[in-house]
């Protein structure tokens, strides 16, 4: 089997580069409340066109890290560099897909997808065309005028995906996007996401709870550990693409990577538990 998709780790600038990211949170509103170190010294370079999944125990700061990449929150220390430029605000190069979909219940599918475009004051006709094109891309052309509450969870997240794609951003930041979707729909959505990202050459950072999902989608898997959140390991997944054309889970590379990740994750969880008990 030939590796049809090559991660371009050798080419020029990274899509996202993080250096020395550190973030603390204050627990309650009292001034003398305790501080929690959520992320400590994260260094990471994500290549253009790469699909990076992030996995780790709950509370390891995955979502915080993603929100820092999106510039929704700022790190206390460290820098975020997107395509060669230091950033401190959300911009058009990055688009986020949310775990709870984040659709406006008062807007139709079309209006939800158009939203980021009208915010940027694109000409009306053009925004409509772009939006419709992406609604088609996720297979919802028949539901253009439906409201979110009329759609199933899977369909709602398709809208979320179409909305992110319509911005034309090169980088998709996805926070457990399929976490709230039933298992079978999720598999279909995974396939579609892989297809779209390959067609459009997107860089994707994808948080997940699900080991299979992490390995199946990724060029590289980032394993985090918690207390404080740190990079424990980054592991490459050398599975040929397109991965929809064979049974990925039966592939020995999949089995190897998954097994390795599970041992690491399990050790981390057990360590954590004994520490908590002491």
């Amino acid at each position: 089997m030939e590796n049809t998709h090559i991660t371009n780790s050798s080419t020029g600038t990274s899509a996202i580069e993080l250096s020395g990211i550190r973030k603390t949170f204050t627990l309650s509103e009292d001034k003398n409340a305790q501080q929690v170190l959520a992320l400590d010294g994260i260094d990471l370079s994500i290549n253009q066109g790469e699909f990076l999944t992030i996995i780790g125990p709950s509370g390891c700061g995955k979502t915080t890290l993603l929100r820092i990449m999106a510039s929704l929150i700022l790190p206390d220390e460290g820098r975020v560099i997107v395509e060669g430029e230091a950033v401190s605000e959300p911009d058009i190069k990055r688009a986020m897909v949310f775990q709870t979909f984040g659709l406006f219940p008062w807007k139709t599918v079309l209006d939800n997808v158009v939203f980021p475009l009208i915010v940027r004051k694109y000409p009306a006709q053009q925004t409509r065309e772009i939006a419709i094109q992406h609604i088609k891309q996720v297979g919802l052309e028949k539901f253009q005028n439906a409201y979110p509450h009329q759609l199933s969870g899977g369909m709602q997240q398709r809208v979320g995906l179409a909305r992110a794609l319509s911005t034309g951003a090169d980088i998709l930041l996805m926070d457990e996007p399929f976490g709230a979707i039933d298992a079978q729909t999720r598999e279909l959505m995974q396939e579609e996401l892989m297809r779209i990202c390959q067609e459009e050459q997107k860089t994707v950072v994808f948080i997940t709870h699900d080991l299979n999902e992490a390995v199946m989608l990724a060029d590289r898997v980032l394993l985090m550990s918690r207390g404080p959140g740190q990079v424990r390991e980054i592991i490459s997944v050398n599975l040929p693409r397109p991965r929809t054309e064979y049974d990925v889970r039966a592939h020995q590379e999949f089995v190897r990577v998954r097994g390795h990740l599970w041992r690491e994750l399990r050790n981390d969880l057990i360590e954590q538990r004994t520490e908590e008990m002491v």
Partner: protein
Amino acid sequence: MNLLATFKSRRVYLPILSLLVVLGGWELVGRSINPLLFAPPSSIIAMFGELIASGELLAAAKITMQALFLGYILAVIAGIPMGVLMGAWPRFGDILQPYLYAIFSTPRVVVVPLIIVWFGIGFEARLFLVFFWTAIAISVNTAQGVRNARPDLLEVARSFKVGRYQMARHVLIPGAVPFVISGLRIGAERAIVGVIIGEMFLQIVGLGGIITTASSQLLPAKMLCAVAVIAVLGTIIVTTLDMLEARFQVWRNDSN
């Protein structure tokens, strides 16, 4: 399907059956004890016909509606901007909240003596009874709506770098709409009670006035006619707003 049909007919025939039983019983008992005092349904219907024919009921309803609608509209005009202000500027809202809550929790019948010294007993006094409490209900709910914008949607908007104006237009204002409508409904309930209090305790006019005069004339049938009109009026207004509220309910919850 058969089951559904039975169920559907049940919800029609049972209330009618029960109404017939109650009205029939009332008629029999009322007639045999004291037809004047216990106002059997036949006497109420006769009275209703009389009141319609003489135009008394219609004229009274008109007076009631005038104060009701004018006071309500003024309350909407004042209450929504006030609520937006209280929501957008939480400090102001927090400082104002205790007074509004205290006024709102005070039964209006006991405020009547104050209203008499401030506004007299005329139209203005009734208008105030409708306006003030309704405006409070609307503004408090609006403020809550503005303050309780869904954090997940705020974050979505921020991730697309939305400006202040766009944030208000696409996120904050539509998000507050269901709360405003709740305020409109609660306010309407308050408004109806307010206008009736005004008509019973201040100047004896309108539907409330009919109740008071009929009470002094010992004519329960006449009272019940006015009560029925008030109840129907209230039901129509509140049900309409209820339906509107239900329609916007999906805006409130996360849809998954």
